[in-house]
């Protein structure tokens, strides 16, 4: 089968991408496989300036998952472009920049800079920064703020596809999706991590220095599928689904409920060659099940 998919004009050789924050700047995985194999990779969230992130500990185990509170540690957009991007085979796989900022105007500046760089295929706007300027409400939890950020980014991104990444920590994710699509988002990706916590009953301490962190991994897959399904009913733009994918069958589940492509996050920690293997496993499973085209399979859940 032809494994290619198209996200708002961006063509991927196959639907498997890697998720932001779980695949570094891509280069870290060269020892484990051929980056060219991937449909695309989303690099660690980039801010205008380098940032140091949260105090340690930043990660903890969770049942069928993990918690993280990395915070916004990154080398900054400029360093990424100058020092990492050229090491990536961006001619052969889509390199997507994940944007992280604390105000709409900062988002816009970041988008303006990144959208002009050769080698970046699309922007993914992470609207769940926990330290935003406006009174502690997260961008991603308020439809009008989410729309404002989307508009600000779109205005400054030229022709580059803008993907808005949604958080599941909302009452109604479909209306969040509608808000960002109405504001011009070319695609949406979901889900980011679930707001969660882990504590040690013996030491009486939180297991993350930040106290609250994000839950990812297989534990959240049923929530992620529900979110993608609801968003697929609500908007017409392509959806990139993610949350707990650890097998080719999981990939198909996301496509079945309406996703065009997927991202693999925590599974990269199960083994660093996970995403590369998944590309092959997906092709084999598609063959085994006799799926004839993505257009035929996508969203074909029989309800």
């Amino acid at each position, binding site marked *: 089968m032809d494994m290619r998919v198209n996200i708002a004009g961006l063509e991927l050789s196959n639907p498997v991408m890697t998720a932001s*924050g*779980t*695949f*570094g700047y891509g280069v*870290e*995985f060269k*020892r*484990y*496989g051929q980056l060219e194999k991937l449909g695309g990779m989303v690099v*660690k969230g980039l801010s205008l300036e*380098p940032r*140091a*992130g949260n105090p*340690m*500990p*930043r*990660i*903890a*185990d*969770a*049942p*069928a*998952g*993990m918690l*993280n509170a*990395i915070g916004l*540690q990154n080398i900054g957009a400029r360093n990424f472009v100058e020092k990492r991007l050229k090491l990536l085979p961006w001619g052969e796989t889509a390199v997507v920049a994940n944007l992280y900022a604390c105000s709409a105007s900062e988002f816009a500046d970041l988008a303006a800079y990144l959208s002009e760089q050769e080698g970046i295929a699309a922007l993914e706007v992470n609207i769940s920064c926990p330290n935003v300027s406006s009174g502690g409400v997260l961008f991603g939890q308020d439809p009008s703020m989410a729309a404002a950020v989307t508009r600000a980014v779109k205005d400054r991104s030229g022709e580059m596809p803008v993907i808005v990444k949604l958080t599941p920590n909302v009452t109604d994710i479909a209306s969040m999706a509608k808000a960002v699509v109405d504001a011009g988002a070319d695609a949406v990706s979901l889900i980011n991590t679930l707001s969660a916590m882990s504590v040690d009953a013996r030491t009486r301490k939180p297991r993350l220095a930040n106290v609250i962190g994000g839950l990812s*991994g*297989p*534990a959240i897959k049923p929530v992620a599928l529900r979110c993608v399904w609801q968003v697929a009913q609500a908007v017409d733009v392509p959806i990139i689904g993610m949350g707990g994918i650890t097998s080719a069958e999981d990939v198909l589940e996301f496509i079945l409920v309406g996703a065009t492509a997927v991202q693999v996050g*925590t599974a*990269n*920690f*199960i*083994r*660093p*060659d996970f995403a590369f293997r998944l590309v092959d496993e997906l092709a084999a499973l598609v063959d085994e099940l006799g799926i004839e085209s993505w257009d035929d399979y996508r969203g074909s859940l029989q309800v």
Partner: protein
Amino acid sequence: MFGNACQDTTVKSLTRFGKGEGDGEFIELTLEHPGLDNAAWKLWKPGQFVMVRPESFGLDPLMGRPFSITSADEEQGISIFFQVMGQGTRKLASLKPGEPVTLWGPLGNAFAVRKDTPTLVLAGGIGIAPFYEYVKRHEQPENLRMIFGHRPPLACYNWERAQGVCSCEAHHETCRQDLMDFIALIEETVPQYCNDGLIIACGPLPFLETIKKVADQHGGRAQLSLENRMACGVGACLGCVCDHKTEGPVSVCARGPVFWSDEIEL
């Protein structure tokens, strides 16, 4: 070209050391050598580590676990030496020969080796793991002095393996006074190596903190191997960082696990 550094292998053997509940469980786990497709195995050095994830982890825990490489040899296999701490090591402890394990590595940097330099090797508890091979490989073992602090009995630590090669002193800590004596020993010994010696250390955080403090005070430095919690092991997740004085937070897995004590905050 180096092949894929993440390899599938199987359990070759488990050897248990020590005995009795109170001692904890100490295990040398040997895996079949996954092969030199991954040419990095030809070049591994003590101080480097591997990420280990047996299939039996299932979804719990999801993350693999990092362990110092104790030895690696195409015939003998790859060994790690670990203490049972929690759910991950418990599952490792119940592995049987033949069970499948995913292994990535060798990862990280290694301890410095300066054959002509008087070298102080400081091991705290299970932190001895990388040093069996370090002392074995050393070309001038008469330049080595190893001090080993431990709470469980020596029998837990395969101590013979370290001995005989170089000057080795074990300090059994059974009460508060033992600990004070041990700290005093560090305070006395570390300065002797601060100017023209080499100090390398691996062990629990308080142990490393003491060494760093003494070295700092005497304008010296020691190489410390850190054991932060890890997810990826490859420098991608930023879950394992420590504070580097000039570079800010750096990945222990990729930039370390061995750091000069004067370059980091503990």
